[in-house]
């Protein structure tokens, strides 16, 4: 997650989240394929404006494209329906299941694109600050969340070390869940100790709820313009297409 210089990055994070959630709601409430496709296109425009380089974007979309194909195949091959198009063994593709598959897979992909648009253009610190100011998120909870973010790279490093150690000592587990526990147990015990230490350090720096703010996102006219335009567009697509 990084902030960049794209136009979308300048929108107030809370307003952006609200807008995108609205588009998602519209997606859920429609069962008409043209509308879903139009909204997918709309989300694609959003991603294209997110400021990521095309190559990186395509690379990150690969797993989701696979998910798209998988969802499509599942819904198409195992869905119910009357008009049979093709059968092979257990697989039975009908006209209805095909239409349903298109709808669900497109909807899912539109969700993914909208989420990526948000993640790509939002700095986590600004996002949390915006939640404090615009959505009245309790301060203690918000700072707890920000502190938690710092654990992600720490976890990544720890997991790498544990995997290396398992390789060196030639420990292989028979079941995947054994690997999961072997890795997560030391991870959680150490992080409980660390989070306690961080909490003490924060208290020692006189953490309190009455405070001023270094990062203070405000809602500007442009945020409202963005909100209105997007909501109008999504609603009219839903109603009139």
């Amino acid at each position, binding site marked *: 997650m990084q902030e960049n210089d794209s136009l979308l990055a300048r929108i107030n994070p809370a307003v952006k989240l609200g807008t995108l959630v609205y588009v998602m709601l519209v997606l859920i409430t429609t069962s008409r394929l043209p509308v879903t496709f139009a909204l997918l296109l709309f989300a694609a425009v959003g991603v294209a404006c997110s400021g990521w380089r095309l190559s990186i974007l395509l690379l990150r979309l690969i797993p989701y494209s696979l998910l798209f194909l998988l969802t499509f195949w599942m819904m198409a091959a195992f869905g119910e329906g009357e008009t049979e198009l093709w059968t092979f063994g257990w697989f039975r593709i009908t006209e209805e299941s095909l239409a349903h598959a298109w709808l669900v897979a497109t909807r899912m992909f539109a969700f993914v694109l909208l989420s990526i648009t948000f993640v790509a253009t939002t700095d986590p610190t600004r996002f949390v600050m915006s939640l404090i100011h615009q959505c009245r998120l309790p301060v203690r909870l918000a700072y707890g969340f920000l502190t938690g973010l710092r654990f992600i790279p720490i976890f990544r490093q720890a997991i790498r*070390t544990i995997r290396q150690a398992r390789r060196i000592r030639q420990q292989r587990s028979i079941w995947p869940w054994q690997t999961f526990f072997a890795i997560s147990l030391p991870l959680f015990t*150490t992080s409980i100790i660390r989070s306690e230490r961080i909490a003490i350090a924060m208290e020692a720096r006189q953490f309190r709820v009455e405070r001023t703010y270094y990062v203070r996102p405000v809602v500007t006219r442009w945020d409202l313009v963005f909100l209105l335009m997007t909501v109008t567009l999504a609603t009219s697509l839903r109603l009139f297409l």
Partner: protein
Amino acid sequence: MWCRNLTVRYPDQDCAVLNDLTVSLRQGETTLLIGPSGSGKTTFLHVLAGLIPETIEAEVSGEWRADGTVGMLFQQPDDQFCMQTVGAEIAFSLENRSIPRDEMEGRIRTVLKRVGLDLALTTQIAGLSGGMKQRLALACVLALEPDILLLDEPTAQLDPHGRRLMMELIEELHHDPNVTLVLIEHQLEECVTFADRVLVFREGQLRLDGSPLEVFEEKREELIRHGIMSPLLYPYTLETIPLTVATARFLNNPPVARRPVANETTFDLTDVTITHGKRVILDRISLTASAGEWIMLVGRNGAGKSTLLETLAKLLPAQSGTIKLFQTPLKKWRDRTFYQQVGFVFQQPEFQFLKQTVLDELTISCTSPTPGQLNNALQYYRLADVAGQSPLALSLGQKRRLSVATMLLERKAVLLLDEPTFGQDAETAAQLVEVLRRARAAGTTLIMVTHDMELVHRYADRVVVIGEKHIQFDGTPDELFRNESLLEHNQLIRPLSVRYQQREEVKHHAGKRFTARAH
């Protein structure tokens, strides 16, 4: 700032950590707290900082008071931050004090400058070195504009270079008449010179109280009797210490005699290039190691020492060149047989344990363990008392011993170690060295990354300096310590004993007394 009859007990313990403590500290004074671990020094600071009993649960009785704002710096550089970037982190301190937004930018730059960090405000904290993190943490505490500054072993987790910079900063703060400093530190050499007062803690009580001269000169015998570290040179300096003092004899001790190593080659590297993504870490390096040789890798932070170790351990692939172990390229070794020959001790021991008890941990380390062999190992590594405990519940020193034990139960041809003595106390480090010396005598090649130059001086057969993607030096420690520009360039510091011996040598050659000069 004072306390009277202060007693503190943690909920899950029977004895009090602090027992009937009465002491008062004067404004502008710098106080050094020493004593064995578990003697209540940190608890005392926590009380002064107002963390006990509000944040940390404990039973407290007695009276105490601290006049003015209190700031506290902790031991772990990584565990003091809650934001992502340098600017936001310092701003967190200012926000807590309700400083208006317009003033923040200026104040942030002021404190950053004060601790000697020249960073953009948007720099990610995760990418900083330990030393820089600790200086940033100090900047955050200074942003509180504290009248009283409590420092809990601020340099214990830093490499020598970071430690030196931190000590300079602390000494600067000592000269600020408005700041009262209270300092716990094991790095006594530097801080006795400026401390106004030393308090010695033992078993929750104040045992000695006086000026550094009173404590370390007059009561030195008493400290030694209780196993409390005292500074090596104080009250003398390197220039003025007389030969009759025990310390001088210790410093004058030559390193252990190095036996000739066997001719059998273990690792053999030719033109090895290692990259991380597109960035070249090491560029066409060549290195040969022999059986029974103790090689130490030194260099700056991020020079690629750990990366080299990981490559040797077959954990990272080399981009080009050949690495051979016993004349067979690494790629042709099968994991199973390879890791019977090569062991690896990680920097953080807690992540290399795989089992629920210490005994199990040892059991999976040998191919066919016998109870006798396991018992011997438990005795040898002094883990018998904790055999049934979880490895994660051990003390730092025990964890380190166990991590080495798991690698050395079966004889290995090569043992790779990533800063095994880092953050350990002197006693644990000494035990570790003893274990490693025996392994070396049995013919194991030891390749070890370290920042401890005293260790290099005393035990290394060969020292390899890594910097700027190349091997800058490969030879004996003696040669390295004579090469001034090389040391300077790689941020290496000659250890005290080498400095002393070199000085003695100069005196000897001059044939007359060397006139003492302030350093």
